[in-house]
């Protein structure tokens, strides 16, 4: 059982990694089409990655080992998250529960690594991005924990897999105000964590408006490849989690081949829909001023908090 679970987790990592660039491709493509463009095609992110891996990597004098190890840490943390989250099956690794707190902490390792890379450069942009990035990360955390706390109360466990499993068994839970509020809050938190609009504009060229971009401004070649793929993978994994919380159907509950195939296909469909929706949504959104972001996060926190209140005090 343990070994099958491990194998499933590895399969999950593989699929998530293959899909992540396509998810970005789909969002960009949707956006382009809505803007009246043709778009570069959903395979473009893969081409970019291939090219980055075939380019040389520059490193300025005086930067420490953080700049060269950091990208690998970021990538590894994203892969680990993809392994932990219930994306195509609700099986969990032996001894490594997909515990909410563990998942968040693993995400934070990636966050911290990027922030340190930004500081390591010693240019003004890096520090700026790093400082903003960490502020947002700090303010997001209450939302994430409280939201999943609310979700974990009906399930009686903080394991994301069992939360999703309960929703699979009793779909009625999904439409209850508790879960609606919590999932909305979680979604806002995911947008902030992955640096999408309205918190951060991933396609900006103005250094002064950057958050994530400003930190990786100095990276090139494979460092850049890992940083990009890492953030894309993080986005896809978290989108997959939200998707499975909203639409748990199709998720494999055992390790039979058929179930896994179904689970994979379901995941692909969900991700396609969510990525397209994300891209479409971003057409209508403008980036918030940096100091309006706390208001947004406070709003999402309140939603999460209301969810907890409701779930506790309503029998």
């Amino acid at each position, binding site marked *: 059982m343990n070994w099958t679970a491990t194998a499933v987790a590895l399969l999950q990592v593989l699929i998530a990694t293959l899909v992540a660039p396509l998810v970005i491709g789909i969002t960009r493509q949707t956006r382009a089409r809505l803007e009246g463009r043709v778009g570069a095609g959903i395979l473009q992110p893969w081409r970019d990655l291939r090219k980055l891996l075939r380019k040389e990597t520059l490193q300025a004098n005086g930067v420490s080992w953080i700049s060269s190890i950091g990208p690998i840490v970021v990538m590894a943390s994203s892969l680990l998250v993809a392994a932990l989250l219930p994306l195509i099956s609700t099986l969990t690794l032996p001894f490594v529960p997909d515990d909410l707190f563990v998942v968040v902490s693993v995400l934070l390792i990636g966050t911290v690594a990027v922030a340190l890379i930004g500081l390591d450069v010693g240019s003004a942009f890096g520090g700026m991005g790093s400082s903003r990035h960490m502020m947002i990360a700090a303010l997001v955390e209450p939302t994430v924990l409280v939201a999943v706390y609310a979700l974990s109360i009906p399930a009686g466990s903080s394991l994301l897999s069992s939360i999703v499993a309960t929703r699979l068994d009793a779909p*009625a839970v999904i439409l*209850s105000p508790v879960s609606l509020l919590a999932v909305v809050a979680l979604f806002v938190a995911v947008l902030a964590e992955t640096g999408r609009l309205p918190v951060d504009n991933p396609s900006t060229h103005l250094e002064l408006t950057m958050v994530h971009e400003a930190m990786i401004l100095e990276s090139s070649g494979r460092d850049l490849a890992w940083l990009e793929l890492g953030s894309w993978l993080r986005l896809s994994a978290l989108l997959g989690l939200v998707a499975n919380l909203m639409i748990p159907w199709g998720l494999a509950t055992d390790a039979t081949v058929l179930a896994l195939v179904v689970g994979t296909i379901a995941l692909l469909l969900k991700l396609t829909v969510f990525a397209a929706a994300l891209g479409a949504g971003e057409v209508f959104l403008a980036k918030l001023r940096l100091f309006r972001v706390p*208001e947004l996060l406070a709003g999402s926190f*309140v939603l999460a*908090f*209301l969810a907890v*209140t409701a779930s506790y005090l*309503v*029998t």
Partner: protein
Amino acid sequence: MSDNLYAQLISLTAGTLLLTAALIVWRRSLRACVRLLAIQGIALAGLVAVLGWHERTIELVLVSLLVLGLKAVLLPLVLSRNVLNHDDDREVPRLNPTASLIFAALLTMLAYIVCRPWMGDTDDPTSRAVPIGIALVLIGFLLLITRRRAASQLIGFLVLDNGIATVAFLTATGVPFIVELGASLDVLLVVLILQVLTGRMQVKFGGTDLDDLTELKD
């Protein structure tokens, strides 16, 4: 309809009421607030309709239609006219949104706590949704206290009224049709009068910031 579905619908509509209230506290733009108010009206009407359907009483269904017409269409229209007829629709609340949001959360919790004794541990979905009505009332008060512009005062007042209506419907399962009619007409009247007043204020002082009214005291 099945009890499960009934419970689902009740909690869904009630949840929407609470969510819209929270969002009204969140947003600064008055237009957005008016739109949210309309959604809240729809949710309230839906709640009443569900009750009526469940109790098989035609009267409640009529009331729900009335609520729909009044709170989801008429009042928002009137308000949006007032909002649109002068350019800036930004509210500058006394309390910054972050703080007032936290307040709203605490108020909701308070509502649940005060309701708990006479809610008991009943599984009856209607009594489970009562605290949300109370929370709406409290949040409405919060809006009345923290907002400056007359229009958003009106919005706060309407949220408060929605709260009262929610509680009334859920506890008494439907105030009689006539009473509801009277109440709604009162509300409409109040809103229209305040409408006129704000219009006059607009003309006289070029602004509807209620803090300026302190100068009118003598």
